[in-house]
């Protein structure tokens, strides 16, 4: 564990070192890739602005709301579709087929329906995140061991008890994987959506600073996303591990 961490840290140092090297030697123009120290300076001044924190707030609340919707809709749909073999057989291919369509293609429709504000990104992220959660919930419930259900029925346990003591615990590890994939799809699609068409949020500021030709600022925003992604991944992994242990 410690060795792995040390290698990771070493790798990061080498990457930043290379970044510094190609910029300080002028191998890559500062217009495309500013030196790390310039990006750090831009980041420091950025976090002192109110605009920064309001953009972070917009993006994080959009992600949280979209993810909450995706989880509720995905788990409920997944559960409902496994209530009968007919439903599962009919709808599972539809849901997985729909997930294969790049929903990005419909992004303009989200803008059309929900406007340029955070609402369109919220809807887009929720729809995209819904699919892996629903599909994993279907897989989890549909593959629960029938004999465990029979064992529970033979003990006089009713449908609610079977859901609680058999189906849900059996499906849970698979659902957890879906929740994880869904979260990152939500995260990525909302930031992407903000960059394509938006009036606020982190993604919007990345696109805006790129258009304004402020590479140091643009990279500062990207560094924020990288930090947020790493932190959220760590948090999700920790939650995941905790649930799987029990």
């Amino acid at each position: 564990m410690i060795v792995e961490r040390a290698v990771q840290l070493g790798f990061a140092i080498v990457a930043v070192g290379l970044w510094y090297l190609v910029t300080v030697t002028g191998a890559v123009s500062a217009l495309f890739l500013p030196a790390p120290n310039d990006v750090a300076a831009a980041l420091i001044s950025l976090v002192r602005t109110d605009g920064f924190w309001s953009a972070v707030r917009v993006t994080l609340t959009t992600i949280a709301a979209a993810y909450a919707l995706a989880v509720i809709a995905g788990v409920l749909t997944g559960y409902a579709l496994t209530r009968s073999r007919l439903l599962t057989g009919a709808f599972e291919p539809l849901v997985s087929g729909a997930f294969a369509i790049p929903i990005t293609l419909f992004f303009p429709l989200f803008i059309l329906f929900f406007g340029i504000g955070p609402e369109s990104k919220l809807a887009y992220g929720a729809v995209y995140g819904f699919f892996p959660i629903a599909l994993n919930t279907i897989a989890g419930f549909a593959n629960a061991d029938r004999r465990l259900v029979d064992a529970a029925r033979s003990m006089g346990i009713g449908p609610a008890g079977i859901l609680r003591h058999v189906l849900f615990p059996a499906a849970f590890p698979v659902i957890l994987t879906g929740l994880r994939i869904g979260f990152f799809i939500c995260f990525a699609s909302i930031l992407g959506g903000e960059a394509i068409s938006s009036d606020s949020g982190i993604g919007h500021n990345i696109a805006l600073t790129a258009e304004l030709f402020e590479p140091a600022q643009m990279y500062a925003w990207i560094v924020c996303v990288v930090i947020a992604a790493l932190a959220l991944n760590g948090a999700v992994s920790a939650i995941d591990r905790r649930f799987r242990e029990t």
Partner: protein
Amino acid sequence: MRISKSGHLIVPAIAVRNVTQTYGAPGDLRRVVALENISFAVERGEFVTLLGPSGCGKSTLLNIIGGLVEPSQGAVLVGDSPVTKPMPEQMAYVFQESTLFPWYTVGENFALLFRYRGVERPEWKSRTADALAAVGMQAFAAYYPRQLSVGMRQRINLARGIAAGTDILLMDEPFAALDEQSRMVLGEDLSALLSRTGKTILFVTHSIAEAVFLSDRIFVMSSRPGRIKSVITVDEPHPRPPAFMLQSRFAELRNACYSLLRDEIRTAMAEASA
């Protein structure tokens, strides 16, 4: 139906009446008759084994008796009551060991047995402890099934069936996942245990030796459609010592079962490959 010395009718523990199980509508080419017109009675305290080739419908029959599956035709009576759904007060199941809920400890597995049947909470622990002690597993209530060997899990699974406290135990190939030696040891334990409790047992297996060693009567089933082909009585008192397996009587009964079964097994294999 039998009549007691005092002239009263003795109601059998389980009565199966003309049970037929079909899948698919009449006229459908894929229609399968899994069980055909099966009738028999199991007396109180009797150990009856359903022995048959794979796919003969013996597990389906057990599930119909247990109220897990509704028969296409016919009826099952437990005592005087028709079976329409699981009857946890009258019948407990012992499946293969893998039906211990893996996300619960042994103790929690037993608790589930009681909590939906209105058993008072203080009783849970003592009944669990008693049943585990009966199979020598009292030290393992706090363990998760995956922490135990297959043989230990099956002992515990057996104890779970006993802890239910029902007069009838339905056992669906409970030892199928065990190796030969563990099977023999557990079979021996089961024989000893049951001679004390006086429970009525309906046991499903495809092991001839197991059937002969444990049963009072063996119902040999035909391959699909499943029917009771023959009944073999094993008139040997319980508990049966392992030495029973070495006696010529045991070999005779085993051979009788095998000769009844071998044609059925061939038919079943031919059907499976067709």
